[in-house]
């Protein structure tokens, strides 16, 4: 992108501007750590878990789906973190949005499309409120969204018990039968192509039971479609638009950005709303997949999102990061979680791994930051 311009306008060389090695140049791309990490993780599991079915079509589908879930919330958290803020209420927002859909559609009998839209509306309004409070009070978003973590979780459990006397509300799948909006979150696409792959023998089929002859992987789940869509949207927004420049500027130095005429408050509030949007996408897809909503869904998801983003090379202090990196961070997350399961490793070790990789990522990011800004 920049190299051709550089050649055409080559200024006289300044002896103090050291030519950077190609390696250093590559290193200051925020995604580099995540790319390396993803390659290592895949190589590791190809070596230890190749025979376990992890890389068979259905195995690949499990870790892709789990990764897609992480990606959906990581994209929102990534843009928000680059804009200089955190949202710790993502996990509670997931539980909240799911319960809103279940109560309105199952208990109150609303059409599911209206329930889904209501969940999006409420979640994004709360996201906006979250952002508004952060802007108006000047408090760290860490603490404001921590308050919302508790408020939303409490409201969710209370609401579920007050209306149905249960914390798990089922029957959403039945309610969603024939709905026009629900398949956008719960269905699969390309089922025809997968059937065709099965017909020509490239994909295994069920040999027994009610689904005999159908391919074992019947299509691409909408979760993965959403994940890919959000990555593309987030990446283009951040790197190729005016608004993307404002996101970087708001997180890099809010005051300097304000003086340059960037509407920092609007950018930050919109990013809080986008994070809430991503959480609701996650919640809706999960509700459609399980056919039920539970008040304790989404526990700890806020931290998993933030960890993915940090592994992806974003700085906790804002102003720097990449959506592609965050997506790769989420992919590492999903592959390792499922890979350890396939490899038969004790699942508690997953957390040990997470802690270690998080620490390594933060150390690498700090080093990279020094390289960019030339600080000592």
């Amino acid at each position, binding site marked *: *992108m920049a190299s051709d*311009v550089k050649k055409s306008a080559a200024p006289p060389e300044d002896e103090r501007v050291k030519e*950077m090695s190609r390696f250093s140049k590559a290193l200051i791309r925020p995604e580099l750590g995540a790319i390396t990490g993803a390659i290592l993780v895949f190589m590791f599991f190809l070596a230890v878990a190749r025979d376990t079915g992890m890389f068979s079509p259905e195995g690949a589908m499990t870790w892709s789906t789990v990764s897609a879930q992480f990606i959906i919330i990581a994209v929102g958290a990534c843009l928000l973190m680059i804009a200089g803020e955190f949202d710790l209420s993502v996990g509670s927002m997931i539980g909240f949005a799911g319960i809103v859909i279940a109560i309105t559609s199952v208990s109150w009998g609303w059409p599911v499309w209206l329930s889904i839209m209501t969940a999006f509306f409420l979640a994004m309004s709360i996201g906006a409120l979250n952002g508004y409070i952060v802007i108006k009070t000047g408090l760290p978003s860490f603490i404001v969204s921590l308050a919302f973590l508790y408020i939303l979780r409490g409201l969710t459990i209370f609401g579920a018990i007050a209306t149905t006397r249960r914390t798990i509300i089922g029957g959403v799948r039945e309610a969603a039968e024939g709905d026009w909006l629900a398949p956008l979150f719960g269905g699969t696409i390309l089922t025809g192509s997968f059937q065709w792959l099965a017909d020509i023998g490239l994909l295994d089929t069920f040999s027994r039971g009610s689904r005999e002859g159908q391919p074992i992987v019947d299509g691409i789940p909408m979760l993965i479609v959403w994940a890919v869509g959000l990555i593309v949207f987030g990446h283009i927004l951040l790197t190729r*638009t005016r608004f993307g420049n404002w996101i970087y500027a708001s997180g890099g130095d809010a005051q300097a950005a304000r*003086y*340059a005429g*960037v509407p920092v408050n609007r950018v930050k509030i919109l990013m809080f709303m986008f994070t809430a949007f991503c959480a609701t996408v996650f919640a809706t897809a999960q509700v459609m997949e399980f056919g039920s909503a539970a008040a304790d869904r989404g526990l700890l998801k806020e931290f998993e999102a933030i960890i993915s983003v940090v592994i992806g090379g974003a700085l906790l202090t804002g102003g720097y990061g990449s959506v592609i990196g965050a997506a790769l961070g989420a992919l590492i997350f999903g592959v390792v979680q499922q890979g350890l399961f396939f490899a038969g490793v004790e699942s508690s070790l997953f957390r040990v791994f997470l802690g270690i990789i998080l620490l390594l990522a933060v150390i690498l990011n700090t080093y990279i930051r020094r390289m*960019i800004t030339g600080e000592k």
Partner: protein
Amino acid sequence: MTEPIIQMKNIEKHFGAVIALAGVSLDVVAGECHCLLGDNGAGKSTFIKTMSGVHKPTKGEIFFEGKPMQFERPRDAITAGIATVYQDLAMIPLMSVSRNFFMGNEPLKKIAGISFFDHKFANEVTMAEMKKMGINLRGPDQAVGTLSGGERQTVAIARAVHFGAKILILDEPTSALGVRQTANVLTTVDRVRNEGIAVVFITHNVRHAMAVGDRFTVLDRGKTLGTAVRGEITPEELQNMMAGGQEMATLEGSLGGTV
């Protein structure tokens, strides 16, 4: 002398019970460098913030190009052609020079009805402008954090000029800089002034002011102590005015004229 481009008349600014400005008047002519001097707490920063739309004056009038003006927010002042370069808030270190240069003024290119940031254009303009100002960049994607303090000020000034500033307010651009970098910034100020832009140069360093200033206004405790024209005042007189006269003269004596 020609018609001033901006006239500030009896500007007062109160913050609650504190009177930060108690009637300050100043006018600036296109193509001049008007230095605003004063010790810490004299009201320099508050005053320029009323000029750049950050604060609304409690009392007083602002005439911009002969017409009365009211700035509600910094954006209004920027649109009118009043650009401010703040000492340490000019640039965002983590962003590239090109992204910084166009921050808030991003060039757009439409593809299929959607507006995209025109990076190619931004990069070309940035490289050309930096070359004009004598800054060697590795590339337009070099982070501002790798530039020196003087270079950052220069980039910020170049940015303001590029986007059509008629008045350039520089808030202590040289106070944190070394000798060589200060000289570079002062050269830039001189170049900008010769392009016909009015420069308001805030400093508490008399020597820096004398190097580029055409007129000098001294503020003390929220009031104008007076405006002097270049050649009619010596650096010593200016220094004394800034420091409140008497005590400074005695201090100066004991320090051997080094201040």
